[in-house]
């Protein structure tokens, strides 16, 4: 662990020992190399790679991105060269990253996840796996896994059986009860949970009378979804014992603190990198300042501290039910 002027921002997520509690969100950060001219990658915790699938995927038709109030809608559609090509041509490049490298696995069947996860995790360049069961932008199948506790459990157990490396399971906010999915993932062997993926959304061009995205629907990210994400982290933190990587619209240190106080042990920054690639570096510096000002030596001391349950202590009879 590295200290930042006396403050320990390090965090362990499963077997992953990170100097900083910051992940760069999958699909937002390439393989890290793309952002290296603008930020010292040694000053982030981990980069989560773009998801890879068993077979190559061209991805969704264009347009794939729409800027919306306080955020953006995307529907990339898991464009990737497939696991064979990826292992042969891409993965070796990740060895030189000065931060942890988390591979991301997506699929359309339980077997897909196990197959891709096993092969990816077998590579030394990959420090941990994120299991993306919550992509909202691939036909109907992509998100099904994260919307059904039973399927979540099957996928996580299948990948768990193939590797001892840290497994982070990425959950969808587009569910009725995220806590029940989280419990299932934990029971199936997840080491940590990434909370949340994007929120399903849509935007329509009123001149052309057409959806703005080629895929019609997309995933909403950015500040617009932050309160949704904070609540999801809060609910999941009350349901499981494994660490949470909180994400969804984090742009500032104050935003990050909301997630830690809600129960996240680490955070992930995605869309905010499109505003200013130096935001992750600024956040770790300001987190250290925040902790020093309060005479707290480590980040762990604030994790989940806002957890007051859901009850209202001041009630009349009529408030119940």
């Amino acid at each position, binding site marked *: 662990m590295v200290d930042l002027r006396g403050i320990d921002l390090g965090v362990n997520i499963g077997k992953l020992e990170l100097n900083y509690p910051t992940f760069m969100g999958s699909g937002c950060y*390439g393989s890290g190399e793309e952002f290296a*001219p*603008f930020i010292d990658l040694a000053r982030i915790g981990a980069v989560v790679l773009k998801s890879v699938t068993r077979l190559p995927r061209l991805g969704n038709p264009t347009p794939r991105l729409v*800027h919306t109030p306080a955020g953006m809608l995307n529907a990339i559609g898991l464009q990737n060269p497939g696991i064979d090509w990826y292992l042969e041509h891409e993965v070796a490049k990740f060895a030189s990253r000065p931060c942890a490298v988390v591979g991301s696995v997506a699929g359309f069947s339980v077997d897909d996840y196990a197959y891709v996860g096993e092969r990816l995790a077998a590579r030394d360049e990959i420090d941990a796996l994120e299991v993306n069961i919550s992509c909202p932008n691939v036909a109907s199948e992509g998100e099904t896994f994260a919307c059904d506790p039973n399927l979540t459990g099957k996928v996580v157990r299948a990948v768990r059986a193939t590797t001892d490396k840290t497994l982070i399971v990425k959950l969808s906010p587009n569910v009725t009860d995220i806590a029940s999915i989280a419990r299932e993932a934990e029971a199936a062997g997840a080491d940590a949970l990434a909370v949340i993926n994007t929120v399903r959304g849509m935007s329509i061009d009123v001149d052309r009378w057409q959806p703005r995205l080629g895929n019609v629907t997309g995933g909403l990210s950015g500040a617009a979804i932050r309160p949704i994400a904070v609540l999801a982290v809060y609910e999941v933190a009350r349901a499981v014992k494994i660490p949470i990587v909180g994400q969804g619209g984090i742009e500032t240190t104050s935003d990050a603190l909301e997630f830690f106080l809600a129960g996240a042990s680490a955070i992930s920054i995605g*869309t905010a990198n499109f505003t200013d*690639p130096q935001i992750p570096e600024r956040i770790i510096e300001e987190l250290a300042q925040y902790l020093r000002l309060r005479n707290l030596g480590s980040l762990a001391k604030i994790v989940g501290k806002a957890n007051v349950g859901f009850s209202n202590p001041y009630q009349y009879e009529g408030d119940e039910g």
Partner: protein
Amino acid sequence: MATIVSSAAIHHALVLDRQELAPGIVLLGFDAPALVSVTRPGQFVMAIPPSGERAATALGIYEASGNRASVMFFVVGKRTAELAALQIGDHIKLAGPLGHGFTVENVRDAAIVAGGVGIASVLLPAQTLLRNGARVRLYYGARSAELLVDRDRFTSEGCEVLVATDDGSLGHSGYITDVLAATHEPPEMILACGPTPMLRAVARIADELNVAAQLSLEETFGCGVGGCWGCVVPLVRSSDQAPSFPPAHRNGSDVVYARVCKEGPVFWAHELRW
């Protein structure tokens, strides 16, 4: 086309000058010598919003000489309005230069087609071509005469300037691509930047004239640095610019989506499948 060497960085640029060239069209000049020294024709910067509240904006680099780089843009929404509000003496972070620009080496006779503020991406290639002794004809179109900004600049640099306006207030009344299509002296190479319908017309004309064309595309960007795959365009996989991707299986399409911000923004017209 030129290979990418990552010479990009974040430049803390001081605003040196600010002009409104026409209603809604702003030219901002910056003190950014390190940016100037590595900028190649057709590249862009991501302008990081001073408020930190919105996504960064991709802007073509208009001028780059000495200590000064400039950008030109149309104010179309909140992000460009925020940039337009910058004053002399303000600072802004510019990430760049980014992207794969124009290839102008060994071209002796070029036609440059610019539509509207697409003009912002074609001064640098025009200057390089002229410096190399090439003949450069600029085909410049806009909605009206007052939006044909800075056209005298191109004349004084040594371009032959032909113009068109939608409303007929100057030059040909109609599209600038009509003027290009009517040429009796096809150029050796066409370079173009402007709205997508104009670029499609340029691609068609280039094909008819049997001339190679390089098109600088416009697309909504996410990151602007190749990290998100949001700004893609279909490209033949055999293109030198195609991203690393396996061959199509039997009966599959031999097209791959390339990133406008990374593999582009400049692509060969004949390699696009849009």
